[in-house]
């Protein structure tokens, strides 16, 4: 009896600081976001007016918000698709094949992930520069000037330019994650399958992919969360949402409304939509990718 009380006290003491911090810095602010989304408030005064769901009504008709939402969804889809393919490809190559300097590549691929997003913005605005940029000059070396573009100036491609930078910084991180779970697959599986005549591609689809499936599922949620967050940082640092709002993502639009348009309550309403959206998206993806977990 004495032992269990002691144990309980111990658990209580150990978890209290974490729970306190969690409540204080995560749960309370989240509830606060939901509460503030029902108010009209400038952000500084004490004059908070309750307006019910009015903020959401305005949001429904706000074309700028719809556009930022489209941009965000586009980024989530494009960045996730390209990154996941590249990351799995590279990690298979580095774990399964005997690539010369494999460790070197592993480090090189991981480096972008260590860089701060502001540095990445600097690197990519140098790459995308219309006159002195790497990309346009590269194209002119191969005499394909017709492909030269105003990468950040053309409203139709600016958002894809942003996704290019996001993919570049994300590949290494996910590659390392997939590599670690690929390294856990017993070598004997591959030996057995090759004895039965399976080629590399069959091995990949029948052994590697099913066995790292759980890992991929987890990373899909990471993709959603990190693309939403990082796209905001990158857009803020690189284009400021321009030209004319064509690279605005929903977090940058929320920031703009809450802090520069004196519409704090409206900004919080956007926050609520983003919150629900990312939760719902993660849940849906989690559901539809559910497979029987293979044990080995």
């Amino acid at each position: 009896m004495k032992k269990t009380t002691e144990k309980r006290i111990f658990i209580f003491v150990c978890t209290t600081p974490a729970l306190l911090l969690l409540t204080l810095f995560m749960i309370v602010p989240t509830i606060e976001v939901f509460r503030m989304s029902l108010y009209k408030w400038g952000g500084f005064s004490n004059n908070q007016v309750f307006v019910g769901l009015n903020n959401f009504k305005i949001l429904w008709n706000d074309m700028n918000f719809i556009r930022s939402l489209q941009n965000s969804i586009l980024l989530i889809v494009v960045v996730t698709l390209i990154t996941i393919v590249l990351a799995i490809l590279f990690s298979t190559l580095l774990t399964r094949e005997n690539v010369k300097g494999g460790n070197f590549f592993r480090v090189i691929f991981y480096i972008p992930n260590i860089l701060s997003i502001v540095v990445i913005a600097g690197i990519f605005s140098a790459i995308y520069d219309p006159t002195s940029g790497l990309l346009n000059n590269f194209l002119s070396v191969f005499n394909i000037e017709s492909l030269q573009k105003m990468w950040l100036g053309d409203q139709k491609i600016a958002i894809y330019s942003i996704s290019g930078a996001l993919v570049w910084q994300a590949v290494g991180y996910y590659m390392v994650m997939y590599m670690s779970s690929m390294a856990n697959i017993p070598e004997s599986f591959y030996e057995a399958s090759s004895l039965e005549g399976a080629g590399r591609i069959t091995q990949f689809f029948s052994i590697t992919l099913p066995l790292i499936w759980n890992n991929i599922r987890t990373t899909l949620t990471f993709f959603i969360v990190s693309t939403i967050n990082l796209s905001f940082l990158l857009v803020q640092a690189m284009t400021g949402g321009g030209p004319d709002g064509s690279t605005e993502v929903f977090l940058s639009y929320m920031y703009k409304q809450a802090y520069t348009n004196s519409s704090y309550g409206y900004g919080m309403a956007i926050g609520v939509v983003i919150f629900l959206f990312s939760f719902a998206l993660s849940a849906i993806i989690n559901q539809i990718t559910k497979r029987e977990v293979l044990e080995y």
Partner: protein
Amino acid sequence: MKKKALLAGTIALLSIVLMACQDKDNAEVSSNGGETTKVKQTLHVAALESAYGKDMWSKIIDEYQTENPDVKVELTADKNLEDVISPNMKAGNYPDVILLATGRKLALTENLIKDKALEDITDVLDKNVYGEDVTIKDKLIPGFTDTLATNPFNDGKTYLAPMFYSPTGLFYNANLLKEKGWEVPTTWDEMWALGDKAKADGISLFTYPTTGYFDAFVYSLLLEVGGPDFYNKAMSYEDGIWETPEATKMFEIIGKLGKYTEPTTVANANDKDFKKNQQLILDNKALFMPNGTWIVGEMADAPRADGFEWGMTALPAIETGGDRYAFTFFEQIWVPSAAKNKDAAKDFLTFVYSDKASSIFAEAGAVQPIKGNSEKLTGDNKLFYSIYDNGAKAGMGGFAATDAVEGVSIADTLFRSIDSIVSGDKTVKEWQKNVEKVSDQLRPALK
């Protein structure tokens, strides 16, 4: 038993650490908030560190403290002043005096105007300048305290005092024009003619750093097409004003200018790369750009074409003999209503207009709208500030204050869309229609 003692010890230690943190935070907060201490009165001054640098503010503070030994001044000067002071402001700790202009991207000043959270300082203008026998009002150049930029509610009450002013206009390489034998255009027709000539030489007529620089440009153009009355109506969102023939003319001029704009401008027209656009002028790749006098200091270290020489002109007139305008941009200094030492803050305001202070500011290149100040200038600044002596008229003030309207911003619609006009993603007609629509939405929210 031992374990329990250990446990208790840990908890005690943890709470001490927590309390220690708390104490430190409290101490910091009170010093930032400028609460009255036992020994001295603390005045908290927050100033934007702009192209003029931070040093002049340190000197001003030193000077003020020598004059007033029992006032302790704390200075916050930062390039991103909003990011530094607004978290504290949200927590209720306001600086006592803030130098921060309207028209900044984060729009902190506008936010407080919308909330009516500024102190009425009309009475300060009638006070004597610190240590001098003249009132502030008499010392200032007339007109500077009658604009929407100082009296945002248009009720004759001043909430923001004018500080450093700077004429804005079109900046160019005077030497390039001299070499080519081109005249500085005085009307828009001459401007287009010059644009065609320059095009033949591979030089674009126009570029802009970011669309944010169009505020002064559009205001001047509005004054040129319709005069001050028309301008004030547009600034107070009068119904249909953006669809009048005058406004149409303004939209069309900018639309046409878009066709003469250097092609890479839009790609670099963001806060990160705008200097590349300014560099186009230094490299003789574009002729004119809208800017302010700070450009000289901002680009001081940039490489430039041989014999480069800054030139500045007012906007070309609509027709020969028509009015030409150069908008006057000025930074404002103000006292938040929530400041704790309002009286000390107002005393400080009288000090910044003193001869002593204004000479410190002038050394750094910051010119206050004090009578006779512009005559003391030297070098490039002399040329820039003499623009009004050469026939250009001064425009001042901006849009009237409104309550916040969610998702609607006149600056975004009127200025930011210019990127789309230049790149051809929007037509001038669409742009005009959008501006009128936003004006309609903001009208009911007027204060």
